């Protein structure tokens, strides 16, 4: 079984819990006392991930770090429908790769602001917030035109991909870093759609959506 080194309040760990729940993949969570214990900087954890970062998974002898990398691995290995990470569609893989990098940008801005406000990390919070707003504007425009063109998800596939999962958590948690989403109406609607994907689970700070209207 997959082992997930996990911290409940981490949006990056949540990405993996979300995808595994949507894929129906069972896993064992090993809690890591990220805060206040800083266990991710402990000797035993650094032996697993010398970068001292969560999440990490162990699966079948493979040790893998980095939320986006793990999403790619899990979808490629455990999604027989090949929708979440369409390994046979180079164009789509390119799109996904582009938005996974974008998700990293969301992490380094929105997540940083949240760590500053909630857990007192010594970051330049104004820069982090401004950076997140810049990214949210780009994503909102992308999603708004997507709606006009009949596309509901971040990539051009007619179904969600790991790119949606990678971007979702730190967008949903942005208000904890003092980054309101009021100006991003298309992002807000997309968040509702993500919450209505089968197998969606919440984390602390994320509430579920109401059921969709029957067609």
């Amino acid at each position, binding site marked *: 079984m997959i082992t997930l080194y996990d911290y409940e309040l981490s949006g990056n760990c949540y990405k993996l819990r979300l995808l595994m729940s949507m894929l129906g993949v069972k896993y064992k969570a090993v809690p890591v006392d990220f805060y206040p214990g800083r266990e991710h900087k402990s000797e035993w954890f650094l032996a697993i991930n010398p970068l001292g970062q969560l999440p990490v998974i162990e699966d079948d002898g493979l040790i893998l770090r980095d939320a986006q990398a793990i999403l790619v691995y899990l979808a490629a290995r455990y999604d027989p429908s090949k929708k979440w990470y369409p390994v046979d569609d180079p164009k789509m893989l390119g799109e996904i790769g582009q938005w996974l990098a974008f998700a990293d940008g969301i992490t380094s801005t929105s997540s940083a602001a949240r760590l500053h406000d909630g857990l007192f990390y010594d970051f330049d919070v104004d820069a982090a917030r401004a950076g997140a707003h810049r990214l949210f504007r780009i994503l909102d*425009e992308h999603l*708004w*035109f997507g*709606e*006009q*063109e009949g596309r509901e998800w971040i990539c051009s596939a007619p179904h969600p991909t790991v790119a949606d999962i990678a971007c979702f958590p730190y967008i949903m948690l942005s208000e904890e870093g003092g980054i309101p*989403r*009021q*100006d991003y*109406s298309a992002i*807000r*609607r997309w968040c*509702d759609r993500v919450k209505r994907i089968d197998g969606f689970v919440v984390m602390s700070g994320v*509430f*579920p*959506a*109401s*059921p*969709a*209207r029957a067609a």
Partner: protein
Amino acid sequence: MPEPDRSRWHPIAASHDLPFRHVYHAQLLGREFAVWRADDGYVNVWENRCLHRGVRLSIGMNDGRELKCQYHGWRYANRTAGCTYIPAHPADAPARTITNRTFPAVERYGLVWSAEEPVGEVPALAGVTEGRQLVLRGIPVNAAAEDVAERLRSYRFQPNGALDGKDAEVALEAASDTSVALRSREAGADTLAVFFVQPVDAGRSVIRGVLDDDAEGPQRIAVMRHHNRLLSKLRDEAEREAAGKPAPASIEPVYERVSAELAEMPEVTPHGRKAALRVEVARKFAAADGIAGFELRPIKGLLPTFQPGAHIDVHMPNGEIRQYSITNGPGESASYVIGVKLEPDSKGGSKCMHETVREGDVLAISEPRNNFPLRRDALKTLFIAGGIGITPLLAMAQALQNQRLAFELHYFAQNESQMAFRDRLAALGSSLRPHLGLDPAATGAELRRLLHGYEAGRQVYLCGPGPMLEAARSIAAELGWPDSSVHFEYFKNTNTIDDSSSFEVALARSVMTLQVPAGRTILEVIRENGIEMPSSCEQGACGTCLCTVIEGEPDHQDVYLNDAERRAGTKILTCVSRSKSPRLVLDL
């Protein structure tokens, strides 16, 4: 900055911002709104604050009929914003005056318009035809609305038919401090663009643009991208300029205080037997054999919030007053739908409704009153309806269905053609269990089967003819159902009222002692002495005139209280019940 003008209509969203089951977070002049479209299409614009603890309703859930607050699950109805359920107190009906602040909402030109205290109508756009317009992507700007509007006067764009050109001639057709109309012409192509700048807060705004001509297919997207690019550039410039100036202070919204009565524990407020509302019979239809359905719409404004189980008094043209349950599901707040069975021995109530009242007639009705509140904390709820007793239970079943809570609706009727409101019943799917054509003995056996195996966490609601209710209640008691889990409503009190006693009634809070002679009711006597007391059926069935007994032994003659309540002797229905002791002290 000068005091903002709160009387002017502004767009606060685009229609496409409001898909079903979504809550949009809007803001105008510092005040936040939760904006949501119900499944019936109605657009609600509410103060973005739950009245209970101030939590933003925009983080709540739109279930298509009601908006549910994320903090304590309070439910607010479509249109009225009245609270229909407070889960912390499942046995109580919330005071219907717990109503969130609403603001007007008008959908026009693909935009949703509102204002705090609007004067007049939403402005008509010269040159734009409703339904033929193209709504651009709204562009939020971190700059004051008047500065953005000023910049828009020199906005330059290409007409829809000549997007690739670059020499369009753009003329300013009209402008105000928050709007600009521009016409662009090139090579025979001609497009009118009207921009509204929504003042979100002192230093924030949204540009909402409407073009006079909806393009099609890829051309439509190209037009929208053309403006999106140009407006984004304008936004960047406006923000650069605003960043160089000191940021204006945010506009502090003033929250209205809740009414004094709500600041205390909410109690049902007293109302007399008044006809507070005038409604029009919008539709009269055959709900079943012998049952007429009436859809009642307000003459003006909105109908008050109702809860499942509530009834209204209907004042008929012949002077009679009758009580009818509201059958609506949650959030169906545009009209009330009632069902009236033609009683063979009708003294004029149901006969009048069936024979005299027609579509288009105006009737007077009371506000809805709920003496048959529905708990929603049961693991499973049984509804047992006999005949026209379906009406309150139908409303209840629809409420539980909407919340995906477990229930069964057992409907006893003579035959299928006597089952009322079949479209609503059909929507209940397999939760509906008809029992047709059973004689009293077979009905009893069926009730025994249904009520068998009581477990904690079950609730049963009964409504139907007296003999069936009596049977069901005694079977439930025999099978171990506690009184507190058995809820019932009689249509009428068929007991013979014995009003031969005379006694004294002391009103504790009013410090008054009154004599009730034979032939008069407690209700009549206290009203004559100036004490306001609500009532409805005045025959001991509906529970509206319920009152607390402090001292003395009541002589119960009603069919509203359950056996435990009768034994406790702490409540009395003042319209029919009397006193066994010479003196009765009431909490009035």
